[in-house]
C-alpha cells in the first residue's frame, strides 16, 4: 500500500530531474527555470489564490470521475457535462438579468449541477438499457455539448449590445460567486472542493454504497453474486460525476469568467482524467493532484513571462509527469526478471 503512494512522489521527483536536463538542453538556466516553474507562481498571495482558481474545476471534475472509475464506470465526457452545467447555470443568470436577488446564485448552482447530471444521465441510460459503452457515448456527447454551446452564444444568449460577437452579457453582481480573499480571484468554489472531497472520502471509505462501488470495480462477478445492483451503481456514478462536472462549469462562469464566452474550459474535463489517476482515485490524492496539475499550468505561464520558455514545454512537462507515473507504477507493481522462455510444446 505504501508503495502505491511512493509511485506518484517518485514520478514528480523524476519529472523534476528530467525537466532540469530539458531546460539545460534548451539553453535555459535550469535552476532559474525550475524556480520560475514551481516556486514563483505560488510565492505571493495572489499566486496561491490563482492556484486555487485553476485547481478548482480540475478537482471537482476529478472527484466525480474518480468515484466512477473505482466502480469501472468510465465517464470520459466530463468536459461536455461541464459545458452543459455552465450553460444551464449561465442560462439562469441571463434569464434573470435585471431581476436577480440573493436566491439567484443558489438557483444557478442547482441548475449547473442539474445540467451536468442530465448530460451524464444519457450515457447512464444507454449503458443500462442497451449495454452501450459509456466511454464512447459520454465522449461523443462532449462534441454535442460544444455545438450546443456555440449555438447558444451565437444565438439566443448573445449579448444584444455586443456588436454581434459570440458571447453573452456580463453577469450581474447577484450572479457572481463571492470572493474568499479580497483582492484575488479565489472564489467560494474552492470551498465546494473541500466539501466534495470530504463527501467523496466518506462515501468511499465509510459507506456501504462506497463498498459496493469498489467491489463492482475490483470484482464485478463477486458484486453480482452479492446482489449489488449494477444498474444503480452505474446511475449513481454517472450522476455524481456529471453533477460535479456541471458544478465545475457553473463555478467557472459565475467565478473567474463572469459571462458565457466562446471558451469556458480549456479541456478541464479531459485533464481531470489525468488528475484522477495521478491522485490514485483517492479523494485527497485527487485534490493534491489537481493542485500539482494547476501549478504546472501556472508555472508554464510564469516560465514564459520570466524566461521566454516556449509554451510547448508545459505540455512536455505534463507528458513526462504521466510517463514517469505510469513507469513507476509498473516498476512498483512488477519486478523485472530475466527469464528463459518456456520450451515450446
Amino acid at each position: 500500500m505504501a508503495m502505491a503512494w511512493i509511485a506518484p512522489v517518485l514520478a514528480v521527483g523524476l519529472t523534476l530531474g528530467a525537466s532540469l536536463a530539458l531546460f539545460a538542453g534548451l539553453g535555459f538556466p535550469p535552476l532559474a527555470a525550475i524556480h520560475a516553474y514551481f516556486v514563483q507562481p505560488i510565492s505571493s498571495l495572489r499566486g496561491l489564490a490563482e492556484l486555487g482558481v485553476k485547481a478548482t474545476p480540475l478537482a471537482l471534475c476529478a472527484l466525480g470521475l474518480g468515484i466512477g472509475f473505482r466502480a469501472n464506470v468510465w465517464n470520459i465526457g466530463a468536459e461536455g457535462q461541464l459545458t452543459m452545467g455552465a450553460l444551464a447555470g449561465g442560462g439562469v443568470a441571463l434569464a434573470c438579468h435585471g431581476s436577480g436577488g440573493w436566491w439567484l446564485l443558489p438557483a444557478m448552482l442547482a441548475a449547473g449541477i442539474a445540467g451536468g447530471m442530465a448530460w451524464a444521465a444519457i450515457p447512464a441510460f444507454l449503458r443500462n438499457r442497451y449495454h452501450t459503452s459509456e466511454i464512447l457515448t459520454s465522449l461523443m456527447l462532449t462534441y454535442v455539448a460544444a455545438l450546443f454551446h456555440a449555438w447558444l452564444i451565437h444565438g439566443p444568449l448573445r449579448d444584444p449590445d455586443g456588436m454581434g460577437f459570440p458571447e453573452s452579457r456580463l453577469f450581474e453582481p447577484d450572479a457572481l460567486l463571492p470572493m474568499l480573499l479580497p483582492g484575488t480571484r479565489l472564489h467560494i468554489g474552492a470551498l465546494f472542493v473541500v466539501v466534495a472531497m470530504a463527501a467523496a472520502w466518506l462515501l468511499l471509505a465509510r459507506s456501504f454504497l462506497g463498498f459496493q462501488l469498489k467491489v463492482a470495480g475490483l470484482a464485478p462477478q463477486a458484486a453480482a453474486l452479492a446482489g449489488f445492483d449494477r444498474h444503480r451503481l452505474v446511475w449513481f456514478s454517472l450522476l455524481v460525476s456529471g453533477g460535479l462536472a456541471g458544478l465545475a462549469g457553473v463555478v467557472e462562469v459565475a467565478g473567474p469568467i463572469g459571462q458565457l464566452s466562446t471558451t469556458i474550459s480549456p479541456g478541464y474535463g479531459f485533464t481531470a482524467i489525468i488528475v484522477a489517476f495521478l491522485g490514485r482515485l483517492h479523494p485527497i490524492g485527487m485534490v493534491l493532484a489537481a493542485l500539482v496539475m494547476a501549478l504546472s499550468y501556472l508555472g508554464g505561464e510564469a516560465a514564459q513571462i520570466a524566461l521566454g520558455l516556449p509554451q510547448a514545454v508545459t505540455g512536455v512537462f505534463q507528458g513526462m509527469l504521466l510517463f514517469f507515473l505510469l513507469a513507476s507504477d509498473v516498476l512498483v507493481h512488477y519486478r523485472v526478471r530475466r527469464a528463459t522462455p518456456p520450451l515450446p510444446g
Partner: protein
Amino acid sequence: MTAVLFGCAATLSPTPAAAEDAASGPLKVAFVYVGPVGDHGWSYQHDLGRRAVEERFGGKVVTTMVENVSEGADAERVIEELAEAGNKLIFTTSFGFMNPTIKVAARHPEVMFEHATGYKRSPNVATYSARFYEGRTVVGLIAGKMTKSNIIGYIGSHPIPEVISGINAFTLALRKVNPKAEVRVVWVNAWYDPGKEAAAAKALLDQGADVICQHTDSPAPVQAAAERGAWSVGQSSDMTRFGPNSQLTSIVDEWDVYYISRVQAVLSGTWKPTDTWGGLKDKMLYLAPYNPALPKDVLELAEKARVDIMDGTLNPFAGPIIGQDGKEILPAGKTLSDADILRMNYYVEGVQGKLPR
C-alpha cells in the same frame, strides 16, 4: 493591497534587474497570443510585429510574450501577471481577451493596454484592428476569374462582424466579375484548429469547390486544397510554402508599423487610448506575392483594385448591395459606414446557407 502585492512580486522576481526596470530601465512591452506562435497565421504575424519592435528599439525596449492563452478564465490571470511583472504596455491580441483586458486595466491605471479587434475602450485601453475586408475584395476578384466550377469554399471561424464583412466583401467582388459564382461557408467555431479546418476544406472540395478561402489561422486549408489541386487563399500570413501551386495570394496582416508607432508613443509620452482601424493604405495588411500561374488580365484586375482601394476610388461596400433574400440593402451610389460594417450580421446575395444566429 495592490501595492503590497506589487512590491512582493517585484522582490520575488528571479532576475534582480526586474525591480530596476520598472523605475528607469528599458520599457517593458508584453504580448498575449491566443494561438501558438507556430500557427503560421494570426499569432505568428503578431509575433513578427513584436520582433520588429525589438529590432527597431534595441536596448530601449524589452518584450515578453505568452502564447496559446485560452480565452476563458486563464486570460485574466496571464494579463494580470504581465502587468504585475512591470510591463508598461500590453497588447492582447484576440477578441476573447476583451473583458479580461478591461478588468485588469481597471486595476492597473499605470499600465497601458492595447486590445485587438474589440470594441471596449477605457482611459488606459486602446483598440486596434485591420480592415481585413479590403483584402477580401481583391481576392474575390481573383477567385471569380479563376474558378471553373463556380463554387467557392469559405472556412469561417466565428460568425462575428469581422468575419462576415470579409465573406460579404469577397462575395460582392466575386460576383462582380462572375455573377454565376456562389460561396459556401463552413463555420469551425475556432480560430485555430488545424484538424477541423482541414476537415472543413475537404468537405467543401467534395462539394465541388475549386477555390478555398479561410478566415481561420492555420495553413491546413491551404494544404488540403493543394493536395486536391485546388486554388486557395491564405490568411493572416503568407502561406505559400504550404501550397506553392495552390495559394493564389494571401491576405497578410502586418502589425509592425502599428506596434512600432504605439511603443514610440509610450516612449515619448504621447500614448492615448485610441481606436485604430487601418487598411491597405495604412500598411496594416498587404497581399502576399500573387501566384505566378495567374494570367496577366487577372493580375492587372487585382492590382488595379488594390491601388483603387488604397487611394479611395474603390469602396468594397459600395451599393448596390443585395441581401440573400433578394432585397436591396444599400442602393447604388451609396457606401456602408464603418458602423454598419462593424455591426454586419447578414449575408449578401451569392452566399449559400444561413448565417448562424
